[in-house]
């Protein structure tokens, strides 16, 4: 046990009132997130889907037969599954070595690199599309690969976006994993690879499954990436819902496809939950400082062969190549943002202080809007996501309780798997005078951070949960035996350990909110547009100035994200000699 606890002050034994307070706490902990999700996700989605199935007051399920009889539908479902599976597989295969290098080793520039790999995660897809395509287009720097408009290009872009998800989620657990179990296996004669496979990998499985399910949902609902890089020949369920809803207003087809999407997503979540639950158990956690070693490319003197140095080298090489590949489109973006009519210069950056003749605010004002909205969204997501993680981390004694916990877990992942179009249009249908209240929430600025929080909650849950679940129950028992009341156990054990992963969660939620475009684009009011919305508007306007401004604004968004993520990383560091 590497976690030490202060001896709790002698607490009065929990009496009847204490117990009822505990019950009240858990009721609130379950109810608040449920009401939040119900109001701002389930209701709009159900309303929107119902619109497609209820015709003149009668339920009409004829849409299913109709949609499923189109060969196109089946092709789209197949493509969605193929893209999402391949994207997930590759992200995990590349992300796990990345987590090892970035979270299990120290080296100069590590914080910077960690922040850097998060940047793609938040960039607007329109911008990434441009950055990617101008690399791949024939005559471009990577034109010889002939990847433009291919399936491979889409999968590559999906990995580009989701690499950080795997690295951060897996890294967050890995750096706290007590290395002594692996060391023991090695001492007993296991090869480094065997020790990794039989000891470390099983311990990491919950985090990997978590990250994989997140990645799968992101890939399965990718929209802009698919359209810009592949066009409709690689259409997915998501792009098809968009076309049917916004272009054809065929709500029947859109509703059927939304249900299909729900089924696919639920299936993926079930698989992930299975993978997690068979592996999940208490882990010996430690401080990052204890588990992290300096990264050495040359074998340190005196270290024997077969010491696992080769594994480190392979992981480092893979990660270096991935980072290089991530950097290519980003560098391309920066280069293009510096290109002006007259050659090279900072003109487009100077223009960010103006409205570019087209926007309702300057780009800097939009940046401020984004930050404010992201702050609200992060606070909401932390409260809601924190409560969900806390509830879901319990292991009720009765089977029905355990099933309820698993269900709750999956429920809060759903927003990532449901089309932003369905949610956005659903808001329009449900948020006009909700419950007869005299407010029109549809065009209210309050709805924007809420919509962003809905998609940030799963990230918070997935980041905090593996850490909470890995807490040895004996720790809580020990605290209780020493006389701590249930509330105090929660505070001193769960909370104090969970706050360690909070920095990671805050950074993630903030980044997700900064980059959120789907639902926001349907909601953002022009007097307070967010940065991604402004970028989208700029890039769609004719004229090289607008285009240059859009690229410069994207670079700003990237830097901002990297800065905030790096800041959050620092926030969670326990400090030198830290002992908790």
């Amino acid at each position, binding site marked *: 046990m590497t976690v030490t606890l202060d001896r709790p002050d002698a607490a009065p034994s929990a009496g009847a009132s204490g117990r009822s307070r505990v019950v009240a706490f858990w009721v609130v902990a379950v109810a608040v997130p449920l009401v939040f999700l119900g109001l701002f996700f389930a209701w709009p989605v159900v309303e929107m889907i119902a619109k497609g199935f209820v015709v003149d007051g009668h339920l009409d399920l004829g849409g299913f037969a109709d949609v499923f009889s189109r060969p196109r539908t089946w092709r789209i479902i197949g493509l969605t599954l193929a893209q999402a599976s391949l994207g997930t597989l590759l992200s995990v295969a590349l992300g796990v070595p990345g987590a090892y290098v970035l979270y299990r080793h120290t080296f100069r520039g590590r914080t910077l690199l960690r922040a850097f790999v998060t940047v793609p995660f938040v960039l607007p897809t329109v911008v990434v599309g441009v950055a990617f395509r101008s690399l791949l287009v024939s005559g471009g720097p990577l034109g010889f690969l002939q990847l433009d408009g291919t399936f491979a290009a889409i999968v590559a872009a999906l990995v580009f976006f989701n690499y950080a998800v795997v690295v951060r989620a897996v890294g967050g657990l890995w750096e706290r994993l007590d290395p002594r179990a692996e060391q023991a296996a090695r001492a007993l004669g296991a090869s480094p690879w065997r020790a990794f496979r039989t000891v470390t990998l099983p311990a990491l499985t919950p985090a990997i499954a978590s990250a994989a399910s997140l990645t799968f949902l992101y890939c399965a609902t990718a929209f802009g990436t698919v359209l810009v890089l592949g066009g409709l020949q690689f259409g997915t369920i998501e792009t098809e819902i968009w076309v049917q809803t916004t272009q054809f207003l065929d709500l029947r087809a859109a509703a059927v496809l939304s249900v299909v999407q729900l089924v696919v997503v639920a299936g993926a979540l079930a698989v992930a939950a299975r993978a997690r639950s068979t592996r999940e158990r208490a882990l010996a956690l430690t401080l990052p400082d204890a588990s992290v070693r300096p990264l050495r490319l040359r074998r340190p003197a005196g270290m024997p062969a077969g010491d696992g140095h080769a594994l480190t080298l392979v992981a480092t090489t893979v990660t270096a190549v991935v980072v290089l590949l991530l950097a290519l489109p980003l560098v391309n973006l920066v280069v293009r943002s510096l290109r002006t009519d007259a050659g090279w210069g900072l003109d487009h950056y100077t223009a960010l202080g103006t409205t570019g003749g087209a926007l309702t605010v300057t780009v800097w004002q939009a940046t401020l809007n984004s930050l404010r909205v992201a702050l609200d969204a992060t606070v909401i997501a932390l409260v809601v996501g924190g409560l969900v993680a806390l509830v879901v981390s319990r292991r009720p004694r009765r089977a029905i309780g355990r099933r309820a916990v698993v269900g709750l877990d999956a429920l809060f992942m759903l927003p990532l798997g449901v089309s932003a179009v369905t949610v956005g249009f659903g808001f329009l249908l449900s948020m006009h005078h909700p419950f007869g209240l005299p407010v029109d929430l*549809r065009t209210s600025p309050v709805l924007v951070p809420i919509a962003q929080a809905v998609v940030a909650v799963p990230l918070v849950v997935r980041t905090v949960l593996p850490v909470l679940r890995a807490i040895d129950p004996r720790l809580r028992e020990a605290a209780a035996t020493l006389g701590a009341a249930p509330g105090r156990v929660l505070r001193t054990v769960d909370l104090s350990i969970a706050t360690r992963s909070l920095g990671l969660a805050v950074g993630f939620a903030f980044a997700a909110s900064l980059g959120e475009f789907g639902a926001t684009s349907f909601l953002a009011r022009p007097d307070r547009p967010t940065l991604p919305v402004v970028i989208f508007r700029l*890039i769609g306007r004719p004229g*090289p100035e607008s285009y240059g401004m859009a690229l410069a604004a994207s670079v700003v968004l990237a830097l901002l994200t990297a800065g905030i993520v790096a800041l959050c990383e620092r926030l969670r560091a326990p400090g030198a000699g830290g002992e908790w």
Partner: protein
Amino acid sequence: MARIHSLRVVGTAAVVAALAGCSAIGSDEPSASASSDTVTLVTHDSFALSEGILADFEEQTGLTVEVVQPGDGGTLVNQLVLTKDAPLGDVVFGIDNTFASRAVDEGVVAPTTTEAEGVFEGALVPIDYGDVCINVDHTWFAAHGLAEPVTLEDLTEPEYKDLLVVPNAVTSSPGLSFLLATVGAFGEDGWQDYWSALKANGLKVADGWSDAYYTDFSGGGADGPRPIVLSYASSPPYTVPEGGTAPTTGALLDTCFRQTEYAGVLTGAANPTGAQQLLDFLRTDEVQNDIPVSMYMYPSSPTATLPAEWAAFAPLATDPFEVDPADITENREAWLTEWSDTVIG
């Protein structure tokens, strides 16, 4: 140590609370919608007017203008159809002739008192228009010693193989306009063969206009590989090089489809009087003269004046292709599906 730790937590919480002072929710001023001194304009992503113009309107009328921009042209109309029982605002701008008929059929817009030439079904007032045309990169053609294409048919000729890029008709409104140009040119039963020929001649379909113009097109500033692109008749003036006197690109005026954008008062508007006032304001010279500058479209009002470089470098088509708006509404989905099957496969 636990105490120090909780101090840190408290400190962090204090920082968060302090930051919350700049939260977006906290600073929300009360929404004044649905009152008689506010008028809400619902419009698409591309709507923009130069600074101060809407403020002038507010000064003249004492009304406050709120603008809501839910998405592109298609999203705009479909959202209005969905919310017609509880409209998102009072007045709409940005319904174009490819969606006009659907908006009127669905009863989204109310009859208007504005008198102008070209009012659609007594409800939609034309505000601006533009031609969607094939653009060519003069520099590229000069460098390669190749004659530029002139007509739609030319684009299927072997010397122009692998040179054309157009935006997707399903996901982009200029893309749809070009599909309609071909429907107008080759008839409801002839356009499919034309697109098959284009495809056989190495047509490239990009997702959106910006993607086609900035990534694939050679004259869009990024040195893409293709010298023929679908864009607007108003694009060439923006390619006049620094210190140059003529644009490096040009529009082929025999390949155009005319897009007209309308405004109208929404059915069930909370402030129909204000809506009508704003609608009339959009037709004043102040707004009409600004439209080319801020939205790259031609003003509909005959009394408006064009910027000098437009008169020189952005002539309109004399005889653009046309398709009846009712036909478009009736066939849009079928045509787009057929187009997808033919071109995208």
